[in-house]
């Protein structure tokens, strides 16, 4: 089947009675079902699941996979998402039966390898963060944020400062920051950016105070800029009695170069599915461990992994001041396995070199595009940078149009319209795993598109042309939501 041919939905395939899988015959004496399950609880009709052959199912999903872009398919400079290469050996590790087929309620003496891995990973993350302990429980970055804020809240309450109900968030912050703060019952105080793209220290001075619970910050921030005033900022918050939360979404810029703890942060989350190379799976599962300063350690969620006197690893479930559990069991273990494999492979020198190359690659692209696209903050960037399509917009071409045109070249678009403080934003993050040739090809395509804007803007407004489907109407999708297949619609 050609890639650009539409693929029927799973529900439109198959025939009644067809099967792909048979169980072994029931090898114990059985009873009529209604003797073991009360009649009123038995399903009257089986769920109308597909009825396919194995080949039919395999072809269906293989067909779908061919209609999808991934890091293994082509360049993926999606800003703030760190779409680096996902090493294959780590997939192999995660499928070892000794790691993949263990149950969370097995006796601890039968999972010592798993606990050792978690213990060592925690140590590595603490070293990278420059902090004291970590929890591996959070399932994603936003989940780490929520957990970290709960710790901050517990800390203030324990210190008799429970009235502190404000979280300060810069206007350039990821949307998850204010959303997480709200889920933790906090009021959000927004602080603007200054003309250099950093937090406005002047404004921060005005908003910190006796009600400040904490500040959430990404550094480098979402403009890809390292905040030069970072030490002043974190000190201001500390002086007011608040704590500092580091959103580690952009940690790929600073591995082995500097540490959040040294910057004055008290709690940090890492996105293992960004910085530590675990695949993003089309939207997860990820993992968002958080590392904390000693003052927050008593409040960490349960369980923690500890090493006892006989060098055995144990899960510590009873911690009197803990905020409790934030996730079922112990976190996304197989994601931890992959990140552990990555760290063991890279070592301290490799991690540092990864950040250096990521930063070099971003600066290289930025330098070679800033004459044809507006660069709102013209200074050395870190692992990513933000261009603005304001010049192109004068010709009727938006950041969205440019993004769609890139798809025609087997390149995933940058993050668009974010951060919100930049008009027509295009946020570009190449990562360290691309070759120079790939970076050069991207630069050339971006320059060609800039030229195309001047020659035939209307062409861009209709892009993409070479994808499996044309530009999709998102407005229609939201106005009249069709969010599942329904039999009636196809029976014509």
């Amino acid at each position: 089947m050609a890639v650009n041919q539409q693929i029927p939905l799973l529900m439109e395939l198959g025939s009644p009675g067809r099967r792909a899988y048979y169980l072994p015959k029931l090898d114990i004496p059985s009873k009529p079902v209604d003797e073991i399950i009360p009649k009123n609880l038995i399903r009257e009709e089986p769920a109308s699941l597909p009825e396919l052959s194995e080949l039919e199912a395999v072809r269906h999903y293989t067909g779908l996979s061919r209609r999808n872009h991934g890091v293994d398919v082509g360049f993926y400079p999606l800003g703030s998402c760190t779409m680096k290469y996902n090493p294959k050996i780590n997939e192999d590790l995660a499928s070892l039966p000794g790691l993949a087929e263990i149950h969370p309620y097995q006796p601890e003496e039968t999972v010592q390898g798993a606990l050792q891995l978690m213990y060592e990973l925690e140590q590595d993350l603490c070293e990278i963060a420059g902090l004291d302990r970590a929890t591996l429980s959070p399932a994603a970055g936003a989940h780490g944020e929520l957990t970290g804020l709960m710790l901050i809240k517990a800390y203030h309450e324990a210190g008799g400062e429970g009235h502190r109900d404000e979280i300060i968030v810069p206007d350039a912050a990821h949307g998850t920051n204010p959303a997480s703060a709200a889920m933790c019952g906090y009021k959000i105080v927004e602080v603007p950016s200054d003309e250099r793209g950093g937090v406005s220290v002047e404004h921060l001075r005005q908003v910190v105070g006796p009600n400040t619970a904490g500040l959430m910050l990404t550094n480098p921030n979402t403009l890809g800029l390292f905040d030069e005033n970072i030490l002043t900022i974190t000190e201001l918050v500390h002086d007011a009695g608040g704590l500092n939360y580091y959103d580690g979404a952009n940690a790929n810029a600073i591995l082995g170069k500097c540490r959040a703890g040294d910057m004055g942060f008290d709690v940090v989350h890492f996105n293992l599915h960004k910085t530590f190379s675990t695949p993003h799976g089309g939207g997860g599962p990820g993992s968002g461990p958080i590392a904390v300063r000693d003052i927050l350690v008593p409040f960490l969620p349960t369980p923690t992994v500890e090493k006892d006197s006989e060098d055995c690893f144990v899960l510590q479930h009873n911690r009197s001041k803990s905020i409790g559990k934030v996730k079922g069991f112990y976190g996304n273990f197989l994601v931890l396995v992959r990140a552990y494999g990555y760290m063991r492979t890279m070592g301290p020198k490799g991690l540092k070199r990864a950040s250096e190359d990521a930063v070099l690659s971003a600066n290289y692209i930025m330098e070679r595009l800033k004459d044809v696209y507006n660069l709102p903050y013209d200074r050395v960037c870190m692992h990513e940078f933000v261009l603005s399509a304001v010049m192109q917009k004068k010709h009727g071409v938006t950041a969205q149009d440019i993004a769609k045109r890139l798809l025609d070249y087997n390149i995933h678009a940058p993050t668009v319209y974010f951060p919100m403080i930049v008009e027509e934003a295009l946020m570009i993050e190449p990562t360290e795993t691309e070759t120079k040739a790939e970076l050069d090809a991207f630069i050339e395509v971006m320059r060609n598109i800039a030229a195309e804007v001047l020659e035939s803007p209307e062409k861009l407004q209709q892009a993409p042309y070479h994808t499996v489907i044309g530009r999709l109407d998102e407005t229609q999708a939201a106005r009249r939501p069709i969010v599942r297949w329904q039999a009636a619609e196809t029976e014509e």
Partner: protein
Amino acid sequence: MGHPYLSLTDEERLQMLSDVGVGSVDELFVDIPSEILLKNDLEMPEGLSESELWAHGRMLAERNMSLDSNPSFLGAGVYQHLIPSAVKHVANRSEFVTAYTPYQAEISQGVLQAIFEYQTLICQLTGMDVANASLYDGATGLAEAALMAVATTRGKRVVTFESLHPDYLAVLATYLRAVDTELVVLPAKDGLADIESLKPFLNEETAAVMVQQPNFFGLLEPVDALGDLLKESPSLFVASVNPISLGILQAPSAYGADIVVGEGQPLGNPLAFGGPSFGFMAVLDKYIRRMPGRIVGQTADKNGNRGFVLTLQTREQHIRRHRATSNICTNAAHSALIGAVYLAVLGKQGLTEVATQCAQKAHYTAEQISAIPGWELVFSGSFFHEFVVKAPICAIEVERALLKEGIVGGLPLSKVYDDKKWENTMLFCVTEARTAREIEHLLQVLREVK
């Protein structure tokens, strides 16, 4: 020296530095205050080659007892089922694995269509109107449902029962404490939700009543009665269900659930020491705009071709920021994809058969165990594929005796409950993956424990 996964050569680095107009890479880090710039390498083990890493990984794996080669009777939220080989082969295609959230729909039709199909499958299983693209897991899914109910009804209290999974209860408590919402845990009587005790709480103060079906003890809750009771109530009825059980059990829509959540791991996902897996959520149409998480919707391109996009994004954090329905961003798309492929391969008859075999094998095993002198079933109610038995000795001793014979589990309930009364009790799970021989081996060991 070189490092794997880095693609620049030294020569290219020099060329690029010169194109950027700096003399060394350090000049790119000038914005970092010098007092915090690290002078030394991080203190971590030096990098390993691929073969060294593999050997190290295998060493760690060998220090675990894999349930791939040892029969297990553990359940309690994570279940071992037979997984058709095709499932991991297609789900692990790297175009799916190495993609981000499908922000650019035109080159992400594979993931988007797969999620749209997943949403449909979850609706078909649960009988509900709409499903989201997944949540982290069953426990956080239940907590999200609670927050959603609070936002929808403006009630200030969430009610559940002691028969809920203790981890789910713990996560729920953590989430609700953060927003100062009261959590009331009502008693279980003979292992089942005590409906009488619920009556005083049926008023507008209660945002949701949450029940697990089958419950933590494997028992089937009186969901019909609960549904009847909640029909006229302002509180939302939230059911946390095991998706495999829906091969044989009534769909939650039939007993009046408003929100259905659950742990997706039993659908084709490995045990994985408890994660990653996925949480599913399905609701009635009228709650769609209150739902957390991604939702994929159908639309068309300019030529009228059917296509799929992320939709109703104004609910979400990247648009609505602190007014979003949830902070969730990355969810568990790939685990959910595995779940969808599993359902596609198992199919209509396959899922019914899996559920039926689970129930048959569990009931057979329960009957056999309770026939051993000194052993008895703790609860009298009907169950699906898990049951609690009382041993003549401490359950930890039983666990040890089984382990000596290479058998893992059941779960001594003293591991999750402090109360002394649980000391001799064990929660057993028997799925279709257990053979008659393995069950017989279990019985043999149990007959001999003293």
